[in-house]
């Protein structure tokens, strides 16, 4: 038999003015199960709490109901108070007779009756409350950052700075990401590599950071504080520990027809290569698709010239398993494939380029050595047309169009226009825009400079068609403000292609059980209040993988993600929320419907052997909830037809008892 104590708070006159608190306490005394009831001016005051604590001790209470303000105000206070005298805090229930009773009703009779009903419901629930204890799990003090672009590097540096070990997994042979490919950055026009390469060096030299370059995450299991991650280290055919990055092999390699990814295929590189001069780690990699030794078994030049003996043609992919307390996704973005937008003739003419390709063409370390030459005939373009919003802000996804704004195109186009004008003032530049979006510090000023100072022709309207003809590109477009159709004979067309999430992100999200939106951007745990956390506990988001961003925003988010990781790793143990779902294995049929609705991936299935009533054994698939991952929403409890899933603290029987009491 339960022994419940009921404590009715006056809250000064806040409650007592519209609720006859003594009548509520008196009514409580007649409720079966209630052994003690009283009222007091301020239950939350020290003396009020003493009152509760004394009663718990004196009457050996098994449950406490406090009729007071909203549980959102003082549930914690009272739970702490009863816990202090040895009662499990989850045996306490609050009847909200202030916000939801005395403050919303004027008539004292009505208020009192409702308060009594609320009190009875709370007693009914308290009678069924069972003591709950939050589980504790230890935290592995090591973080994993997936992606070694500016976001990943910044996150790793910040975490390492706090003294925790961090691993970076980067699928390319070097870290650096997209930023390393950029020429200048807006709106300051400072050199991108001058900013990013020192960061790369810093990452490479930090003893808390370990870089797994040329590697991929292939499996993730576990949960917050205790992830187990399998990392595939792709065969590099060069021993990282021996290679000094001298580059002799790349000079000698006879196979020089591999497209250079770093320059987006605008020129070629050798089969053994270092992506660029400042690569970190500065280690050569053999491209197995092009290496003559690996493909035909003849050559072996690199091995001969390598003084360090680092070349190993027998290298194979290796998988390692590492444990982490937290994982940061920093998978960044890619440029959308615009070949489906055939009206812009991207696949018909080499002189139609994406803006990232243009970036390389402008770059001093690029294929043209920084001189702007158009790819087809290596002549300097005189007329350049920039087309905005290619693939962005599209409703129709059949061509791979994106419904979102890619955010950075307006600014980098202004940058391209200005840089081009800076170097070659006689170039005619047309920018066809739909809207120019420049929110950001010094952004609009930057754009206006392109228009006012550099005389870039900004035309409100779009390009309808680009036709390559006699070495020229005939651009047919509209000028909506002049209400006319234009034809421009251009030498080059630069497409501001939409940016899209890294193609590996969806697979990664599945492994992490992190959710994604329909565009494959990672979803944040709360769009306003938890922008750098994924809904899956222990998984954090850094940079563009969460949505389009420019560099400063990316760095800011990277730092924020790092601080969340540091907060997590600083704990020795994680105390969970005890109000989580649990499955009754005797009843579970293993139908998997609960896992389908769980937004956190907290439910897994195991084959378990059961002893039946007739003493035979039977192996059944049953659901198990990981209490460290479950957040307690209860979606699974309703989807479970057999009622095997229930929620601690809000169990089926508790809620039904409340319903019963309130309908009485």
């Amino acid at each position, binding site marked *: 038999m339960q022994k419940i104590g009921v404590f009715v708070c006056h809250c000064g006159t806040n409650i007592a003015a519209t609720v006859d608190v003594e009548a509520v306490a008196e009514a409580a005394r007649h*409720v*079966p199960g209630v052994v003690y009831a009283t009222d007091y001016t301020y239950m939350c005051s020290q003396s009020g709490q003493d009152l509760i604590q004394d009663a718990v001790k004196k009457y050996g209470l098994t449950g406490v109901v406090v009729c007071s303000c909203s549980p959102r105000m003082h549930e914690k206070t009272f739970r702490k108070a009863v816990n202090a005298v040895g009662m499990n805090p989850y045996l306490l229930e609050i009847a909200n007779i202030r916000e939801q009773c005395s403050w919303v009703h004027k008539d004292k009779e009505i208020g009192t009756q409702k308060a009594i009903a609320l009190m009875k419901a709370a007693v009914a629930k308290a009678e069924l409350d069972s003591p709950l204890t939050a589980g504790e799990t230890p935290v592995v003090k090591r973080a994993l950052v997936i992606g070694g672009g500016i976001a990943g590097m910044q996150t790793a540096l910040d975490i390492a700075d706090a003294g925790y070990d961090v691993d970076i997994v980067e699928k390319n042979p070097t870290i650096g990401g997209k930023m390393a490919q950029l020429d200048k950055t807006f709106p300051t026009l400072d050199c991108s590599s001058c900013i990013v390469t020192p960061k790369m060096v810093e990452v490479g030299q930090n003893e808390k950071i370990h870089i797994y370059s040329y590697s991929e995450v292939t499996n993730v299991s576990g949960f917050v504080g205790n992830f187990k991650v399998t990392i595939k280290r792709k065969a590099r055919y060069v021993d990282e520990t021996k290679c000094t990055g001298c580059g002799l092999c790349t000079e000698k390699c006879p196979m020089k027809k591999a497209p250079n990814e770093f320059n987006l295929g605008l020129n070629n590189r050798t089969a053994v290569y270092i992506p660029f001069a400042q690569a970190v780690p500065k280690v050569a990699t053999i491209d197995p698709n092009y290496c003559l030794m690996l493909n035909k078994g003849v050559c072996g030049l690199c091995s001969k010239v390598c003084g360090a003996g680092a070349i190993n043609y027998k290298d194979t992919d290796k998988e390692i398993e590492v444990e982490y307390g937290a994982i940061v996704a920093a998978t960044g973005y890619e440029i959308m494939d615009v070949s489906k937008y055939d009206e812009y003739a991207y696949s018909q003419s080499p002189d139609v380029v994406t803006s990232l390709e243009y970036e390389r063409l402008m770059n001093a370390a690029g294929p043209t050595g920084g001189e702007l030459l158009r790819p087809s005939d290596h002549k300097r373009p005189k007329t350049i047309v920039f087309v905005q919003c290619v693939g962005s802000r599209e409703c129709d996804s059949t061509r791979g169009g994106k419904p979102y704004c890619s955010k950075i195109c307006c600014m980098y186009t202004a940058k391209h226009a200005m840089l081009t004008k800076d170097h070659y003032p006689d170039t005619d530049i047309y920018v066809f825009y739909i809207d120019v979006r420049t929110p950001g510090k010094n952004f609009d000023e930057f754009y206006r400079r392109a228009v006012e100072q550099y005389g870039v022709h900004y035309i409100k309207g779009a390009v309808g068609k680009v036709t390559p003809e006699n070495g020229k590109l005939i651009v047919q477009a509209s000028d909506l403000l002049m209400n006319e159709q234009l034809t421009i004979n251009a030498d080059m067309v630069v497409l501001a292609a939409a940016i899209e999430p890294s193609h590996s992100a969806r697979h990664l999200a599945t492994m992490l059980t992190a959710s994604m939106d329909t565009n494959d951007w990672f979803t944040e745990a709360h769009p306003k209040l938890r922008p750098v956390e994924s809904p899956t506990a222990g998984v954090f988001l850094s940079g563009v993988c969460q949505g389009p961003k420019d560099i400063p925003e990316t760095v800011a988010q990277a730092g924020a993600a790092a601080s969340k990781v540091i907060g997590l790793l600083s704990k020795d143990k994680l105390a969970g929320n005890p109000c989580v779902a649990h499955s009754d294995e005797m009843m579970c049929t293993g139908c998997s419907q609960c896992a389908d609705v769980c937004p956190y991936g907290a439910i897994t299935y195991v084959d378990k052997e059961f002893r039946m*009533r*007739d003493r035979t054994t039977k192996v059944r698939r049953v659901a198990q909830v990981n209490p460290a991952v479950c957040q307690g929403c209860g979606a699974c409890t309703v989807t479970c037809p057999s009622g095997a899933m229930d929620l601690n603290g809000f169990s089926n029987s508790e809620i039904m008892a409340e319903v019963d009491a309130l*309908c*009485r």
Partner: protein
Amino acid sequence: MITRISADRLPELLKQISELEKLYIPVDKSDKVSVFEEYEPGKVMSTKLNTLRSAKDFFFPQVQPMAKFRMEGKKIEVIDPRTEAEDYCIFGVRACDVRSFDVLDRVFLADPVDTYYENRRKHATVVSFACSEPSETCFCHSFGIDAARPAGDARMWMTEDTIYLEGISGKGKALLEKLDLAALSAVTDEKAERDVQEEVRRVHEIQKKMPLYSLTPADNREKELEIFHSPIWKELSDKCLGCGSCTFVCPTCQCFDIEDFDGGHGVERYRCWDSCMYKDFTMMAAGTPRKTQLERFRQRFMHKLVYYPIRNEGMYSCVGCGRCLRRCPIHMNIVKVMKAMEEDAQCETKN
């Protein structure tokens, strides 16, 4: 003494009875559904072979309130819901269901008497209704029941144009006497007797053509343990879904559970049908005595064909109404069990 009345006067006859006491007749609610209902003028009596549910509902309803506990704060008051029933008449009960009352009586009226049952039983006058068109699922004759000459307090035959009435027990005769049969142009004569004899003969002839005519239950009272341990149960019970339809449509199944319902202001204690086919039947803290479907399945049929006869001078607690033959979702019915028992017994003797 058999009285004959023109068949088109049946509504008047029913009306007369209903004016004397509450009257229940089988009514067709649709092609598929016939049920016993309180008579009201205009209601037509069903001539279907059987109602969906058996007539045991009258004495042993699916839910029988037993006591109420009213709670006011911490005070509890016990209320006995029993009141003496009024006299009533059940009209048109088939021979098989009439026999089922005997089967139930031996359970509920044996010491200690079940007062809830007794109250309903003793106030009822049962007017039975002879079968004129038995079906292939009928096997009441296997248990010595004469479908053409049913028992009861009074009985009725119906041919195309005439109904015949005969009082059997004092209660039945008294009821017939109270009726104004003259107003129905009733005739009590030799012809009535002859007609009935002819009708009974006709029905018996039909029965001989039925596939189950030769079905005769063995007297298994000596072989309790043998049958209990027979291998037939496994094979038969493997197919059983354990649903309990057979028990609920069965006129003689009498298992029940007692449950409490907390309505918020008090608790209602009621008795409701239960099925020995259910895995939570007689569930106790330590589990149930019959843990597998085999044991539960065996229990039902052993009870009908072995245990009950042992305790009741060879009387079977199956009346051959055929409801389970029709309603079992997978047709795993008592006839199949009887036949399997027989085959098993023959094998045993051969060996």
